[in-house]
């Protein structure tokens, strides 16, 4: 089975905290980009006999570009690959760029999962981080989505915004929890070179300290689980049967192909990425390409597995030559119940998800 990721690097405006490859561009660039993107898919000559069971159109804001581009992308993929009948096909969207008509077309194209960048329901907070939408538009978007026939909907939320506390966030989630099947909750990161970083330095925005945000995160995580949103990965919560198949591929190291600017791929233990600058992308430069070593594979299995509910299999890495039971730190973590052992499967105790980097680096 194969996953496909398509990157749409365009937005109506750049959010203050965003450090991803996304640009506010004129129509001509978009035209050139999509032409190139379609060529990239058409000319791809690997894995054409694989069956695709997940497609993820991410960005940027895929919903802000003309819907005809999405249409051409979908048909290019369908021409190139065999797609499973009930494959999971996701598109990312901003509340303000969704309308009923657009959503209906998405459905017609076979898109069956919607991932909406809600981030917050507080208009002041939204404005402060440079989002273009407001609370009303979120509810409108959810209403349209239902009308268009979307049943599988994710909302992204950002924790750690200015003036937020547990009750405020819980209230937001409560208001929409019955309209969605999936939540992704991230902690706001102040990345280098972003406007947010500048604002923080100039004290134009005062973010709550990390400890406070982590406490909120833990409480929110408990709340969601009580409401039957099951935490299957550090930042992802889903109703039974609604985990994001495409996301899971990343953690399980299944094969996935990325098309478009800065898209990453993993295919049979080879990783590569497209350029993240338009000019380089148009020249077909591949800034990164690597056949993973045995050691790297082991490390990835542990690192990615411990981020998720599925964990990793001891036997699998033993077969690759790493006997983790001989690692003293590993045994300590098991004894302290920080890692949980169930047969051959090792998982992180969900209480310690937050510090999994620390845990992982101590056993690699």
């Amino acid at each position: 089975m194969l996953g496909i990721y398509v990157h749409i690097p365009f937005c109506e405006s750049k959010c203050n905290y965003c450090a991803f490859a996304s640009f506010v561009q004129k129509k001509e660039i978009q035209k050139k980009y999509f032409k190139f993107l379609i060529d990239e898919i058409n000319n791809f000559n690997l894995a054409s006999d694989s069956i695709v069971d997940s497609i993820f159109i991410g960005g940027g804001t895929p919903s802000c570009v003309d819907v005809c581009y999405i249409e051409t992308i979908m048909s290019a993929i369908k021409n190139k690959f065999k797609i499973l009948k009930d494959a999971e096909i996701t598109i990312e969207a901003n509340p303000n760029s969704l309308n009923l008509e657009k959503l209906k077309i998405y459905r017609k194209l076979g898109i069956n999962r919607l991932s909406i960048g809600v981030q917050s329901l507080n208009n002041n907070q939204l404005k402060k981080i440079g989002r273009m939408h407001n609370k009303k538009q979120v509810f409108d978007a959810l209403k349209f989505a239902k009308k268009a026939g979307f049943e599988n909907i994710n909302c992204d939320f950002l924790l750690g915004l200015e003036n937020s506390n547990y009750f405020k966030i819980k209230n937001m989630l409560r208001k929409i929890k019955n309209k969605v099947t999936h939540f992704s909750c991230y902690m706001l990161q102040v990345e280098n070179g972003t406007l947010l970083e500048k604002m923080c330095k100039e004290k134009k925005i005062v973010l709550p300290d990390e400890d406070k945000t982590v406490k909120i995160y833990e409480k929110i995580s408990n709340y969601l689980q009580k409401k039957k949103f099951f935490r299957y990965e550090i930042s992802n919560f889903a109703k039974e049967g609604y985990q994001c198949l495409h996301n899971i591929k990343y953690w399980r190291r299944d094969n996935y192909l990325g098309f478009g600017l800065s898209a990453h791929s993993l295919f049979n233990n080879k990783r590569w990425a497209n350029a993240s600058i338009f000019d380089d992308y148009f020249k077909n430069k591949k800034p990164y390409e690597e056949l993973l070593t045995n050691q790297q594979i082991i490390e990835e299995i542990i690192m990615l597995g411990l981020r998720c509910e599925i964990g990793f299999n001891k036997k699998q890495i033993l077969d690759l030559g790493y006997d983790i039971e001989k690692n003293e730190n590993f045994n300590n973590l098991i004894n302290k119940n920080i890692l949980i052992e169930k047969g051959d499967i090792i998982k992180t105790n969900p209480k310690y998800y937050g510090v999994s980097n620390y845990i992982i680096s101590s056993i690699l």
Partner: protein
Amino acid sequence: MDRKDKIRNFCIVAHIDHGKSTLADRLIEKTGTLAKRDMQDQLLDSMELEREKGITIKLTPTRMLYEFEGEEYELNLIDTPGHVDFTYEVSRSLAACEGAILIVDASQGVEAQTLANAYLAIDNNLEILPVINKIDLPSARPEEVKKEIEDVVGIPAMHAPCISAKDGTNIDEVLKMIVKEFPAPKGDENEKLKCLIFDSYYDNFKGAICLIRVFDGTVKVGDKIKMMQTGKVYDVNEVGIFVPNTKSTGVLKAGDVGYLACSIKTIQDVCVGDTITDANNPIETALPGYKKVQPVVFCGIFPVDGAKYQELKDALEKLKLNDASLQYEPEVSQALGFGFRCGFLGLLHLEIISERLEREFNLDIITTAPGVYYLVHKTNGEVLKLSNPSSLPSPVEIDYIEEPMVKANIFTPPEYVGAIMELCQEKRGIYKGLTYLEKKRVRVDYTLPLGEIIYDFFDSLKSRTKGYASFDYEMADFERSDLVRVDILLNGEKCDALSIIVHKDKAYSRGRALTEKLKKIIPRQLFEVPIQAAIGNKIIARETVSAMRKDVLAKCYGGDITRKRKLLEKQKEGKKRMRKIGSVEIPSEAFMSILKLDDGDK
């Protein structure tokens, strides 16, 4: 004219930065000892570190030939270190000379080490030639400085050459004065052999090399010699001079300065200050030699990677080859594993050794807080001499403790006297006196505990006097003092490498500063880590490193896991530099943090 009459043995002494090495360079250049193309700045400072820091650490002798009134003279120059830590090296070189050039900076005038070094030279019965340097500076005031030398040092200076070593002005005059003013060496080359070893270094091919001054007799290749102190006998393989690299001459006679190699396997067999004589025809009484130097500052040195213990040991051995004053003995710390307790002449010496270990031997090391040694009088009458805080007996067994004191004299413009007295008072100093040397120069005398000086006395002095004060000290007696050990507990477990001995009145503030500092350095862990400072069982300060809550809740986008991998790589690297105290991981920098405790904590 006798052969010896054409030899002059001399050294250059001065306060640090007054231009010793620059003058040495000019003398070498002027006498044509080295072609100009072979010259490099600070020629005699051969260590990379010496050049970088602009200080001389090792003695380096050079023979120069100089023609004066139709006669060729042999001038043996021994460059000396200027820093107070290395006074000992200066005194060694003085014993090999008949004269000393005393350089004084034309704008700064007489400084603390000018005086200290001048007195050393006088004690060694040397002829002193004052030289006023840096007359090229706009702020130069040579005439005043001459008067200052006469008034403060008490030697005639009116005819002192005024030079600029940097520009090469008046160097010839210095050379002439050397020949005219300094006496020729005495001694008889036909007498029984009598040489002084004034320094030694280790050569990978030739073994330990002795730097010698021949007082009587002749030594040549093939001779059987005897070291009088160790009683060992050797065959001489090579004798020669420094030009400034070694040059074999086959023979050295009374009055000469040079080197001697005789396949001595270990440097420990060469005792600096020892007398060399003819094994078959020995003299009866040895030269007075030197007082054996005693280290005054101590610290633990441990390898960051415990497996490198042997490498550290080898490196220290090698450094010891060229540095008789470095002392070390094995030490085991619960926190840091196997390492060494090392003794140094001072903080600069400590800094230099640890830097050399890192640079020249490529070792990652952890140094613990420097301390002094104490005399601990136990209630059972036993007296312990110890420098390691963790070996201090429990308070009930201690009758009293004595700590080493120093006599410090500080030279300063009068406007800073107040600031200096305040500083000395803070450092538990005892005021001894104040002398006006001239209108703009005051000498302040204090007795201070050495333990206080090694923290940040020098830096504080410089910053409080805008760099105008200079400082020199000599070791004085031990004095009884109210000292306690402050221990640091991490998560309830004592970390021996972080213990310090301090005066009772300062225990609380030090303890607090230390816990605060450690809180900043120790990274957050999976659990809360209390950091406590304690005297015995009594907790005097506490800080807490709260548990780590989060490190990953960021988005992992579009399947890009390379960023995550890089982050993990970084974390893995960081772990290697961590030490485990019980269940707490602390970075190796923490152990050095005590050194810098007073930064910004005032």
